[in-house]
């Protein structure tokens, strides 16, 4: 069951990444592309968390009574990574959305294939 769940989480994260990629590659709307990028991010975050997950593990905190729990602790690094990544993802998304706003202001459209005055 746990194993299934574990694989399921892996699968879900990859699925999320693929969904995001699908959105990025096929959707014409800038907003949807940004959403797609966020979904990819989410998928990767999930992936990272899953890597650090330990079945029946405990929180990675040394506290009285759990001095020898290091072996049973969930790996804390991925969690730190994910926290950082989320922040970065947030920042990127914010910048992206501001750019989308500006693009819409100039082009009056959100279709990405109409916004290609820079080419070749």
């Amino acid at each position, binding site marked *: 069951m746990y194993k299934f769940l574990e694989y399921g989480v892996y699968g879900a994260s990859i699925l999320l*990444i693929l969904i*995001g990629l699908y959105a*990025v590659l096929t959707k014409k709307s*800038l907003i949807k*592309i940004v959403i797609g*990028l966020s979904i*990819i*991010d989410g998928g*990767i975050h999930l*992936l*990272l968390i899953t*890597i650090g997950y330990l079945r029946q593990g405990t929180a990675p905190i040394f506290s009285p009574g759990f001095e020898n729990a290091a072996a049973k602790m969930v*790996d804390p*690094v*991925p969690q730190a*990574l994910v926290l*950082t*990544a989320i922040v*970065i*993802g947030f*920042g*990127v998304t914010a*910048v*992206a959305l501001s*750019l*989308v706003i*500006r*693009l819409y202001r*100039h*082009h009056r459209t959100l279709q990405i294939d109409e*916004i*290609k*005055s*820079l080419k*070749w």
Partner: protein
Amino acid sequence: MVGSPVLLIAVPLLAAFVIPLIGMIWKELVRIVPGLVLAYMLVLSVTLLVEVNQNGTIVETIAGWKAPWGINLVYSNLTGLLATIITTLGFLVWMFSYRFKRNVDFEPAKKYFIFLMMLVAGATGIVITGDIFNQFVFIEITGISAYALTAFYTGRNSAEAAFKYLMMGSLASSFLLIAIAIIYSQLGTLNMAEIASKMHTMDPVFKVIALIFFITGIGIEAEIFPLNGWAPDAYTEAPGPIGAAFAGVVVKAGIYAVIRMVFTLFDIPAAHDFLITIGLITLIVAESTALRQEKLKRMLAYSSIGQMGLVLVAFGIGTHAGVFAALFLMLNHAVIKPLLFFSGSYLVFNSKEKRISEVNGLGKFMPYTAGLFALGSFAIVGLPPFAGFWSKLSVLTAAADEGLLLVIALVLIVSVIEIVYYFRVVNRIFFQEYNKEESVVPHKPRFNAIIAMTVLAILILVIGFYPDAVTGMLHSASSDLLDKSGYIDNVLQVGQSLIR
């Protein structure tokens, strides 16, 4: 000890947050303080480099956590050299853009300089960090400031360029994260040195997949061929000095990340051939595209991409001579291309479309700037006695030593293409009639810009006439890159370094 490598990152980041506050005191400080910060970084990086030359690699741990647990900064000959290049360019970009355009008044200037400092800090971080995830973070910092700087002008095109850059950039960060996840899941560490030392234990399939994701992720920053769609747009639409910063700072950092992966982290010999192949493709496609450009900065951008391809080829050769050649190329490119961007941005200053055809006859009006552009062109196509020649020669000799005749031939053919498009521009500047009304007098560069350009020009001439001024440094840097076990030892035995 003058300071620690940490300061290279900490000071500019701190200053970036402080600038809005001190801007309230005196508006001019917004322009001056970044200069001071960047100058400090320059001095610091140079002194550190000197020290590294004398005493060996400096490994700095952050917050007392030793490697492999904590994040550490590695300031070696190689990283120090790159950091010095980056900070030098950062400083020159600041000097050039001190008052780049009249309309850069308080508010945009504030943003501009904050992002510039973040860009330089991020790039320095990419180079000197010893932690793979930390590198990712710095890539993101660089990226976000780069997106913002690309979108600095509020025109429609700059937003478009920035959005493309951002889109690619976040894809890149996703790939990077995936790669990091794979490596971490397999090796359980994020420290580069430890990864390198444990790499042989990793499942080869995962290794290759991780490498591919890494290269794809960083390749977007390093402008490898199919991943560099954003680059020309960003170069073109960003302010002129920022184009120079991209060429001199961001790309250098990206290339560094790639070669660190290939040379130190992964022990896949075929990756060298891969670098050669992909570098050649990048070189050829970029230069051939540059040949048909109508806009000056776009042409420079493609040329820059092509040069990066050449750098990858040189790295791909993998021998000491090859690495030396590649580093030499990077150095020269970091000197020459900013000069071209600086002077080029003045050549097309007043024109709306920034077309090459609009530079006709400008040599008459702005002889100094135009002359510097010509100097840059001469240097970048590798004409002696200017800087570019020596790096091109060393690339070729390195390739010849390995018997890569086809590579030599292709590189030389591409060089001919390069000559064609650069000399077309030079011809237009100097030897064709001014084709606009006489009333439209071109914008003359300011004093600070002239100084910035002159410094670069002098560097070009110095390297050109006396390459030994830099070759020693480059040689030790390339030995440093190739010395994988030395790197691992240095980082993992950080305690010894701390005692010093």
